[in-house]
């Protein structure tokens, strides 16, 4: 057992650190949940891509560096430590791309991945529906066969990035007569600017349009944009949600950097006599380290050829709770200034509050942990 990186990994780290130090914007970009911020973040994606830092783990032919998970985790540590902007293209990169690598045709990969890597096309996810959140298999949006493709109708909601994004991906019911709700579903990609699509941005708690409702009225999708076999959408989508809960959505580097910023905030704003708050800062340091090490252990399992299943639910509950605790501690350290909506910690705190809700609520994750990891009986939800 060891925690040392090989020389080539450390060289990769140094290269990333140097590039980021030279290129990370000196002043933070506007929020990516605003129109101007979205555009600024798209430019940042293009800059990252020009030096092949936008998707380091992808094969070189699609704009990546073809590096393994250890390199990727190290890159993420450097990325977040540098204070670089949030990733506006993360839905595509973390959710759709792994699905394409596993299930798409070569033609689809060649067509979709390069423009995703460059930020030229930014993807929104379109999973949930007004009546289908945690019980996603109950979704009713449908895709009906037509000449050369499918016609989408129905409504999606909580579609992250959809207010300003270019394209979206999700699952739709193609066989309403299938015997079970998770059968007869098909995974496909569609254009958010196609005829029949209406995008209604929804303001999240701070009013920023971080997600949207999508109204779909006979939106044409060519066969070329169906991923995998029609009817197999559930199985394909589940391989994606595993990614979402697991490593890809929240790299440990993000929390290590946030914990260090919290410690600095403690140095500048902390009251030495307030040991309760001091203890919470220490807990943030410990939690970031625990999450990093848990991830390294999982990465080692990946490297040894094992797969990670329900363990990704442990991951999801942990980081989402951790994220809120860390940001609450920051607000407590700030005192009266915590209330200011344009403060450095305000938007990240608002963002953290969604963690236990999205990517499968933590209640559902705990059911998965209890049933699949502890072997407890299935009960009524």
């Amino acid at each position: 057992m060891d925690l040392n990186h090989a020389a080539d990994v450390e060289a990769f780290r140094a290269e990333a650190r140097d590039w980021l130090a030279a290129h990370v914007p000196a002043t933070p970009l506007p929020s990516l949940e605003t129109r101007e911020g979205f555009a600024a973040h798209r430019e940042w994606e293009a800059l990252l891509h020009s030096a092949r830092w936008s998707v380091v783990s992808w094969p070189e032919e699609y704009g990546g560096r073809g590096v393994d998970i250890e390199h990727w985790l190290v890159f993420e540590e450097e990325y977040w430590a540098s204070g670089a902007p949030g990733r506006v293209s993360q839905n595509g990169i973390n959710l759709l791309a792994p699905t394409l690598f596993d299930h798409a045709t070569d033609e689809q990969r060649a067509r979709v991945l390069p423009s995703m890597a460059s930020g030229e096309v930014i993807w929104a996810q379109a999973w949930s529906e007004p009546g289908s959140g945690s019980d996603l298999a109950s979704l009713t949006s449908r895709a009906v066969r037509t000449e050369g493709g499918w016609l989408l109708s129905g409504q999606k909601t909580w579609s992250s990035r959809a207010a300003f994004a270019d394209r979206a991906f999700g699952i739709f019911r193609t066989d309403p007569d299938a015997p079970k709700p998770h059968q007869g579903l098909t995974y496909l990609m569609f254009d958010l600017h196609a005829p029949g699509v209406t995008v209604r941005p929804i303001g999240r708690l701070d009013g920023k349009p971080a997600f949207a409702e999508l109204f779909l009225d006979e939106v044409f999708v060519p066969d070329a944009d169906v991923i995998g076999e029609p009817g197999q959408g559930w199985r394909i989508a589940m391989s994606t949600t595993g990614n979402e809960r697991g490593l890809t959505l929240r790299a440990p580097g993000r929390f290590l950097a946030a914990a260090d910023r919290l410690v600095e905030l403690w140095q500048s704003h902390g009251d030495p006599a307030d040991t309760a708050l001091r203890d919470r800062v220490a807990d943030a340091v410990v939690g970031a380290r625990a999450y990093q090490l848990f991830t390294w252990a999982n990465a080692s399992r990946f490297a040894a050829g094992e797969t990670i299943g329900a363990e990704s639910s442990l991951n999801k509950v942990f980081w989402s709770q951790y994220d809120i605790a860390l940001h609450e501690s920051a607000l407590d350290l700030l005192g009266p200034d915590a209330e200011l909506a344009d403060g450095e910690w305000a938007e990240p705190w608002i963002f953290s509050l969604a963690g236990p809700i999205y990517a499968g609520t933590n209640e559902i994750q705990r059911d998965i942990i209890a049933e699949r990891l502890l072997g407890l009986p299935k009960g009524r939800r």
Partner: protein
Amino acid sequence: MRFLPSEEQSDFARTLRGLLAASDVPAAVRAWGAGDHAPGKALWARLAATGLFALAADEAHEGMGLMPLELATGFVELGRAGVPGPLVETAAAAVLLTRLGDEAPAKRFLPGLVAGETSATLTLPGAGPYALDADAATHLFTVSPAGELRLAPGAGPLRTSIDPARRLALPDGGGELLAAGPAVTAAARDAADWARLLTAAQCLGTGEALLARTVEYAKQRTQFGTAIGGFQAVKHRLADTLLGLEFARPLLWAAALTLAPGEIAAAKLTAGEAAYAAAMTALQLHGAVGYTEELDLSLWLRKARPLRDAWGSPSQCRAAVLQERLRAL
């Protein structure tokens, strides 16, 4: 980088687990609590035969060199089985003697400790005042804040811990001076770190035992015509318990790998809190039967809190973590 136990490390843990599963550890714990050390000492001899204590002593004195990762892996199993006695203290004493750089005490005490023929308990500067199991240990060492290592002549009256199988006593002052000076102080600091690390490992094993027993109970116990383990409120408590333990484990590994004080404090804090949370969940989900000493569950239930606080309370560990981080930034 491969942050997983090696085959050898896993094998060692499996060997210990098998040995302990084949021993009637609960009977030894109950006897130990009643002052009868014979079954516990028999168990001790079997543990020593696996090479357990040799992992905390150098090769010049029959040890295998200091192997914290293997030892921590082993101590998870001791915690899981609930083995009584000054196990942590004996290993810490071996580290102290190994690190002393003074041949005479090492030569005199280490071979016996490594072989399991003798055992030790100790008090160290900055840690608690009580020596664990001074009545059962062969040797009682003390290190003063001034850096004097002594063989204490005896100990005051025995006090029972919240865990009846842990017995505490204040060492008598004086006794034979074995070594003194900065080397003793440095060695005592290392020994305290190891004691904290191995207690963290025991905590993790204790928490795992509590969780496993509670999961089994929740599958069997029925109320309202169904197993209570099917209720979401019960499931979620158990899921949270697993979560706490699973995130403590890699901290323990990293602490054993690096032996950095901040890492050790983080592991102790997290494993201690996770084990205590596991105890509270076990108590609640077992209901009234869990609130009895008759059920073997009580043997782990009463250990969780003292182990959480021994060799570094959560508050002390948090302070150590923050101190290290502030230094690094």
